[in-house]
């Protein structure tokens, strides 16, 4: 039997030229995930009521508006298009379309744009009462951390525009909503509230070409906005 017993005097390994690994360094401009560039295409519905005062007769009907909304945004500029049509009981149908330009980041943007608004009935579909106007307002979209939730608040005033500016007396719109982007898929849902107030005027041209205001029709449209759609980019 052969055995080798070794003493405990073992050479101790010493640190020689310790090869430490440098700590990770954040790349320049390391930012949270997501991109500020964004494309959003959605369909929406506003369930609520439409009231107007025609010759001191107030009419209120419940109904809904359906529409589509397209938003294209970069970090400091954006563009959106919207079209919607609403039906409220026996009232004339309400259709509007607008295009808006957003300036500055989503957290606080100035928006300017143009809108055409039309009131029409099934019996008179081809010659609606049309109102052309400009838009100017503010918009703020804030992300709530990494939840995918965003708050959106926007408000705009309608500015008379078009050939007969007198047709638009005044108007405003406002919207407050939450947008939630579903994780892992490029879809989002929206819940909010929207109100539009608008006063259109009936105008006639006299012999000299001057505008004669025949009467005004104040109206308000408001309701709960529900939407859903595709979202690419953004955060």
């Amino acid at each position: 039997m052969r055995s080798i017993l070794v003493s405990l005097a073992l050479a101790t390994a010493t640190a020689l030229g310790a090869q430490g690994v440098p700590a990770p360094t954040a790349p320049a401009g390391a930012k949270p995930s997501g991109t500020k560039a964004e494309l959003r295409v959605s369909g929406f519905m506003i369930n609520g009521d439409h009231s107007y005062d025609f010759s001191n007769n107030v009419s209120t009907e419940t109904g809904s508006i359906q529409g589509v909304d397209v938003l294209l945004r970069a970090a400091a500029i954006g563009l959106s298009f919207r079209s919607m049509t609403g039906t409220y009981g026996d009232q004339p149908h309400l259709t509007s379309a607008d295009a808006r330009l957003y300036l500055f980041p989503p957290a606080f943007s100035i928006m300017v744009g143009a809108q055409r608004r039309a009131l029409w009935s099934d019996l008179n579909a081809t010659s609606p009462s049309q109102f052309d106007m400009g838009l100017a307002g503010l918009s703020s979209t804030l992300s709530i951390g990494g939840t995918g939730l965003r708050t959106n608040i926007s408000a705009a005033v309608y500015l008379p525009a078009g050939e007969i500016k007198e047709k638009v007396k005044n108007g405003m719109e406002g919207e407050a909503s939450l947008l939630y982007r579903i994780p892992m898929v490029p879809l989002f849902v929206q819940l909010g509230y929207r109100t539009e107030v608008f006063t259109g005027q009936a105008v006639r041209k006299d012999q000299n070409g001057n505008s004669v205001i025949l009467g005004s029709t104040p109206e308000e449209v408001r309701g709960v906005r529900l939407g859903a759609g595709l979202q690419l980019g953004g955060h």
Partner: protein
Amino acid sequence: MKRCFAAALNWALPLALAIAATPLSAQVKQQASPIDDLLKRAMDAYNDLQYTRADSLARQVLAVGPRITSGQRTQALMVLAAAAYPDDPNSQRRAVALSTLKQIVRTNLGLKMPQELTWAGLDSLVEEARRTTFGLEVTADNTQEVIGPQGTAHVSVRSSRPGTFQMTIMPASGGSAAVMDSLPVSTTGQFTFGAMRNDRPLFNTGEYSVIVTGVDAVNHDTVTVRYEARVVAPSLDFVNATTKVDSSKLLPEKTPRYGAKSIVPAVLVGAAAYALASSLRADDENIKTNVAADSKGVAIGGMLAAGTVAAGFLDRGRSIPGNIAANKAYVAAVQKSFADAQTENRRRVTDYKATFYFNSEAR
């Protein structure tokens, strides 16, 4: 008598020639050793048939004790044995000679008497001593290089009779044995030992004592031989590898929780919804009078605010891809560093070399 003279001539003539041919400085060096001088005088006395004087001079050498070398001791003992058993029957003291020869062959099994000291009768006595004594002979290559954990050095042992053997290598200055090994009952064997264990060197550079002990298997007669060895064994330094990720170095992979910061946007969006439902009205008193504010505004505003606050507190933060990539690269670098260090350390172990310089002269 004639043989003695011839022997003396054989021994003295080359010595004289050698001395004549040796440079003066070397002669001074040689003469500087009184032990060698005593041995020479003892040999001279033996060759001059002055056995008593030869015996006396040899004993003087032995009396010096541990300061004499193994070779000087063996030579003195051989003169002693030869002086005790010359070819002159009247001067023979056989028991003394045999005892002295036994003393030599115990640690010098291959003893061969110099031509100038021996004769047939003494050779027979040497054989008898070898036959009746448990003797040991240890041999090893003077220089042995041992490379890596698998490399080995060898020390051979031979005995006149079957016995067990044990070898210990320990620092000459004392301390724990670096190597201990034993061999089973045999007349020959070889100790094999490495310079590493568990990939660590067993030796430090320095002087070591190689102690070989033989035990007669029958009568348990024990013989111990001690040699000197110098070991050149450089320290084995390892690259100190980073073995695990230092989490304190990692960059945050997510933004902080939104938490209470959500309260402000929650209040704003909730208040805005409420205001839109209750305060933003058509520019018409009739409508304001006839159409009430929308009661759903409170509920919707509350839902928006509550949802925003809840989301803020449930938030886990947004991932930061740049930091995630940097952390990933860091982890990969740590793993690579560890693998590289392991490879380098393995190479150092494999290439580790220790050199043993054995002094074949037993002490």
